[in-house]
């Protein structure tokens, strides 16, 4: 029995040293040993092979790989006026503006039924559908049993992901987070000085790098010359809490958020000792002017790190960018937009908070193949003279959507939980009224 216990101990120590030596230490100093690259190459080859087998198995022709559209039904893109005028074309009477036709109802009913079959908003709050299966059960929507070989590869994949990668990643995440708490608290003991700031940045970077390895994250940064500077506001599209790790791997930011309890609270309290982050009590969050004032003070101080804000206010599934809340754009200062796009083949990064809580989400992340994403730093923007906060927000959102190849929607991310406002219905009613009453105002 003792011998067995000894062997286990030794094995554990060896494994732990390997992990620290091969992964943690290089990560801390930002060096890569190339292990991840090899893993990714093997993974990509395997997925491509699997895709070919699946296509062969379902006897699909090799169509040109242009995805026709994101939608499943063909929708007319015309405006209300154009569509209704088209409907009225068959009439023998001349077109008089200011008239109602029985056929007008077809426009609204068709739009209504189309939205029942497919609408722009509902599917933004569930994971993106894949073109081809990536050997993860969780993304197995419409894919069936193909062949024995695929199934064997899949079983192998499950074993690798759950028995090898998961413990490794959990260890790395634990090391990373404990290092953050300990390191930040230690740095917090120092008096305020340039050295302290430099050390705090180092501690933060190291920890986030370890965490990124803990997710097998491969991040491609583009346009690094546009990186957010001190005293600015960094704005990005939101897909999951991991966005913070992704962005913080390449720069230091001041976080903004609510005070939490538990593990997250411990981390929050520790890192605020090392450098100023902006944490709000739950009650303070309701007071918009207070929030804006504190953020404005932070931004005005040019020695403080740029703050990181996600103006959508909620997680969206990375196929689109939803309405940006104007609050972040009223603070002033320079906005540095950042676009983040995840590659869905390797793992689904979207956090569906209705379906999964934080812990099950993290476990899903750690049992994916990898997290691969592109980060584009966009040139900075400031609010123009005649621009309202809403227009500015839309301008920034359009730029981010364009860069990331995402659909630009003006629907509110809050529709995940709340119903839509009646104001939008009134807009439609107004347009239609103009058509049937004509231009005479009464």
């Amino acid at each position, binding site marked *: 029995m003792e011998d067995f216990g000894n062997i286990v101990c030794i094995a554990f120590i060896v494994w732990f040293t390997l992990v620290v030596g091969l992964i943690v230490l290089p990560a801390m100093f930002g060096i890569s040993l190339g292990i991840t690259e090899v893993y990714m190459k093997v993974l990509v080859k395997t997925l491509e092979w699997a895709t070919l087998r699946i296509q062969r198995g379902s006897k699909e022709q090799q169509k040109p790989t242009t995805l*026709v*559209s994101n*939608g*499943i*039904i*063909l929708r007319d893109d015309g405006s209300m006026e154009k569509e209704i005028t*088209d*409907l*009225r*074309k*068959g*009439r*023998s009477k001349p077109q008089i503006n200011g*008239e*109602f*036709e*029985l*056929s*007008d*109802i*077809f*426009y*609204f*009913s*068709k*739009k*209504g*039924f*189309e*939205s*029942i*079959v*497919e*609408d*722009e*908003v*509902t*599917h933004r709050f*569930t994971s993106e559908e894949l073109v081809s299966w990536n050997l993860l059960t969780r993304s197995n*929507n*419409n894919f*069936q049993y193909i062949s024995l070989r695929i199934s064997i590869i899949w079983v192998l994949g499950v074993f690798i992901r759950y028995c090898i990668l998961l413990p490794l990643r959990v260890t790395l995440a634990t090391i990373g987070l404990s290092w953050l708490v300990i390191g930040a608290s230690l740095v917090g003991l120092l008096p305020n000085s340039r050295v302290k700031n430099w050390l705090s940045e180092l501690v933060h970077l190291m920890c986030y790098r370890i965490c990124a390895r803990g997710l097998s994250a491969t991040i491609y940064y583009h346009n690094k010359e546009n990186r957010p500077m001190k005293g600015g506001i960094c704005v990005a599209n939101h897909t999951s809490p991991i966005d913070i790790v992704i962005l913080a791997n390449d720069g230091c930011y001041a976080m903004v958020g609510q005070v939490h309890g538990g593990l997250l609270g411990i981390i929050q309290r520790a890192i605020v000792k090392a450098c100023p982050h902006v944490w709000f009590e739950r009650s303070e969050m309701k007071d918009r002017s207070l929030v804006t004032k504190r953020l404005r003070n932070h931004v005005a101080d040019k020695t403080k790190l740029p703050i990181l804000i996600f103006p959508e206010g909620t997680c969206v599934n990375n196929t689109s960018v939803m309405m940006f809340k104007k609050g972040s754009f009223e603070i002033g200062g320079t906005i540095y937009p950042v676009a983040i796009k995840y590659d869905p083949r390797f793992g689904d990064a979207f956090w569906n908070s*209705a379906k999964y809580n934080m812990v099950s989400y993290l476990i899903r992340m750690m049992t994916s193949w990898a997290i691969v994403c592109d980060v584009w730093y966009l040139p900075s923007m400031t609010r123009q003279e005649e621009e309202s906060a809403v227009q500015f927000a839309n301008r920034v959102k359009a730029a981010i959507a364009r860069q990331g190849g995402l659909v630009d929607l003006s*629907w509110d991310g809050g*529709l995940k939980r709340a*119903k*839509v406002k009646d104001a*939008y*219905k*009134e*807009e*439609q*009613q*107004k347009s*239609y*009224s103009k058509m*049937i*009453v004509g231009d005479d105002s*009464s």
Partner: protein
Amino acid sequence: METDQCTLYYKSKTVNSALSRTEWIQLKEVLSFHDWKLVTLALPKSCHLSSHQITVSSSHICRLYDRFHALDKDDKGSLNRSDFQNISELAVNPLGDRIINAFFPDGMDLIDFNSFVRILARFRPVDQNPKKEPNAPEPINSRVNKLKFAFQLYDQDKDGKISKSELLQVLRMMVGVQVTEEQLESITDRTIQEADLDGDDAISFEEFKKSLDKVDIEHKMSIRFLR
């Protein structure tokens, strides 16, 4: 499953077999909601599900099944009115409530997948070259049936006529508070005058059909699937 249902189930998996409508309904009654999806997956893509009444291809049924499931957030196996109202684009449609009512005929509060598909099947594009059997009933997505459906959106009390008050109701929904009562009344009067041929101050289905003679119903009341 009983023996004859087993046969049906396995029959549905063979290539180029087609289930008649009665067989399909029999099968559905036996399988659970989730097995229903397995059966539709097993059907080859070209297989039409019934000989005449409901012709929706099986891959479209899979799409609609996924959509039904996505709208059914509480996993009840059926949809109620509020599930429809959660669709933002439908909630901002001025006729949204009428459209939702079309799914809940006869005062029912829940709709199952079979009925969901049947109502949406009306919007399938009209068959270009229908195989006309002499005594076959009109397919559900024919021009006449699409017109009937639109007629029912106006005719809520189902008396076969669109009265002035019913027309007013629909108009009011479409314009909200933007137009005065007098203007709406004059528009309604004018419309009924134009369409009413037998002078009973209401629009019957035949008059409705005649008035929409030249409108391209096939295109405007059809939903085309891309994949």
